[in-house]
């Protein structure tokens, strides 16, 4: 069984969680602690979940993502953005109805025209769209140029 990993990075208030490989129950306590910490301490403006390198994701982790969605909406009036380019993962999210509770972006390149069907949120549609695009750009910037901006979630927690 290959163990996946979760990494995170933060840039100008945008918080990025990157799921790599097979994400299972074993990583969930680290993820849960991190979610608590994000919302307790950090002054964030947006959350992006990068699932472009995810092979599989178990039901327990999906439950935690739901928690992330609920908390984000409560704190900043906006849903987290999920970036997925893997058809299986996209299908799974869709079957869970997660397109109602996340801003799902299923393209590698940010494009304003693609964001026609975002779920309704507390902020205006323009604001949500602008933030989703910005978050996606930040994610791409981090992925391309700045891999060291990502920290391994589990070992970062062990250092606390």
């Amino acid at each position, binding site marked *: 069984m290959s163990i996946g990993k979760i990494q995170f990075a933060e840039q100008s208030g945008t918080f990025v969680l990157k799921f790599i490989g097979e994400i299972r129950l074993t990583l969930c306590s680290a993820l849960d602690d991190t979610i608590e910490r994000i919302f307790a301490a950090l002054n964030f403006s947006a959350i992006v979940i990068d699932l472009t390198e995810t092979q599989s994701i178990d039901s327990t982790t999906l439950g935690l993502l739901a928690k992330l969605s*609920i908390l984000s909406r409560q704190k900043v009036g906006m849903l987290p953005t999920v970036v997925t380019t893997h058809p299986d993962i996209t299908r799974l999210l869709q079957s869970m109805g997660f397109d109602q509770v996340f801003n799902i972006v299923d393209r590698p390149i940010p494009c304003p025209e693609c964001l026609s069907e975002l779920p309704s949120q507390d902020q205006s549609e323009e604001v949500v769209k602008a933030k989703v695009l910005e978050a996606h750009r930040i994610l791409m910037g981090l992925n391309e140029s700045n891999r060291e901006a990502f920290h391994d979630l589990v070992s970062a927690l062990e250092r606390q």
Partner: protein
Amino acid sequence: MHNSSAKLLIIDDDKVVRASLAAYLEDSGFQVLQAGNALQGLEVFESEEPDLVICDLRMPQVDGLELIRRIGEQQSETPVIVMSGAGVMSDVVEALRLGAADYLIKPLEDLAVLEHSVRRALDRARLRLENRRYREKLEVANRELQASLSLLQEDQNAGRQVQLNMLPETPWEVDGLCFAHKIIPSLYLSGDFVDYFRIDERRLGFYLADVSGHGASSAFVTVLLKFMTTRLLYEFRRNGAFPDFKPSDVLAHINRGLINCKLGKHVTMLGGLIDLAADRLTYCVGGHLPLPVFYSNGEATYLKGRGLPVGLFQDARYENYELQLPASFSLTLVSDGVLDLLPGETLKEREAVLPDRVRTAGGTLDGLRQVLGLAQLGEMPDDIALLVLNRNLA
């Protein structure tokens, strides 16, 4: 290595040699006992229990070989170093065969060689002893683990019995319809669950649920599900008939119930209701994959539908979908564990295969069990549940 305080016994009939060895070894920090012949040596050995014996091979009456033999008979692990001036190869071989730790040729030119041999033999003996202690510890730990495991298995089996008792009868014939199910847990206990029941004289209800996670904690949630649905049914009955009772009401009720329990578990499920008078199926989807497969006239297709998983979002709304039932049909609900049994690299490919399998199986549970090869399953990564209801299949 802390061998210095070790207790040594030197057995040699040559007093001069004995004294010089003893002096040297005492200077090296050992505690040294002496004996002038083998019998006396054995007495000291038994009363003082030295850590190591150095003995001369050639002694009057009882010789060194016999001494090693007798020490060996006492099941002693005490190392014996043999010295001999004879240098006869057969003696060397015999001494080593009897378990001597080392063999030194007299006269000993350099006593440092003897000291080195003593220390090495003591180290080996200590390692052997440690090894044995570790092994004993491990064996005890293993026995304890085995006992705990048996206890856990008993618990799991008891839980499994409870779970089996909660499941409905299979097959169940009612008003021309036949319901049947099969559940295969990946562990002892399953996080997948099915149920079907009569609601009132004209309506039947059924659902298939897959609790997040695996094992005992998920199995507890299935008990909770059974409790919540049974209780809901009881409430409905007590308040008289509920003309507009819908599957979405049940999913919303379970959704609230699970969130209030704060178990950190959610459920994906398919729930349905059959109105026999109107021959109509109403169903509801709670974040479940794959969707129900409807089979009629030799055609099998997925029913449409979507909705959030149950037990995650406080304000989740569930939608009801309706379908007029033909005279002959079958409806197959499965948990996502079934997708692991289907060929294909991607989820999309595996999903596409399922209706075809239902068609090959002719819309029956037994057919599907054969087609999927459920009888020959090895270890599966996920629980598997199937619920099939059908009517008038040719």
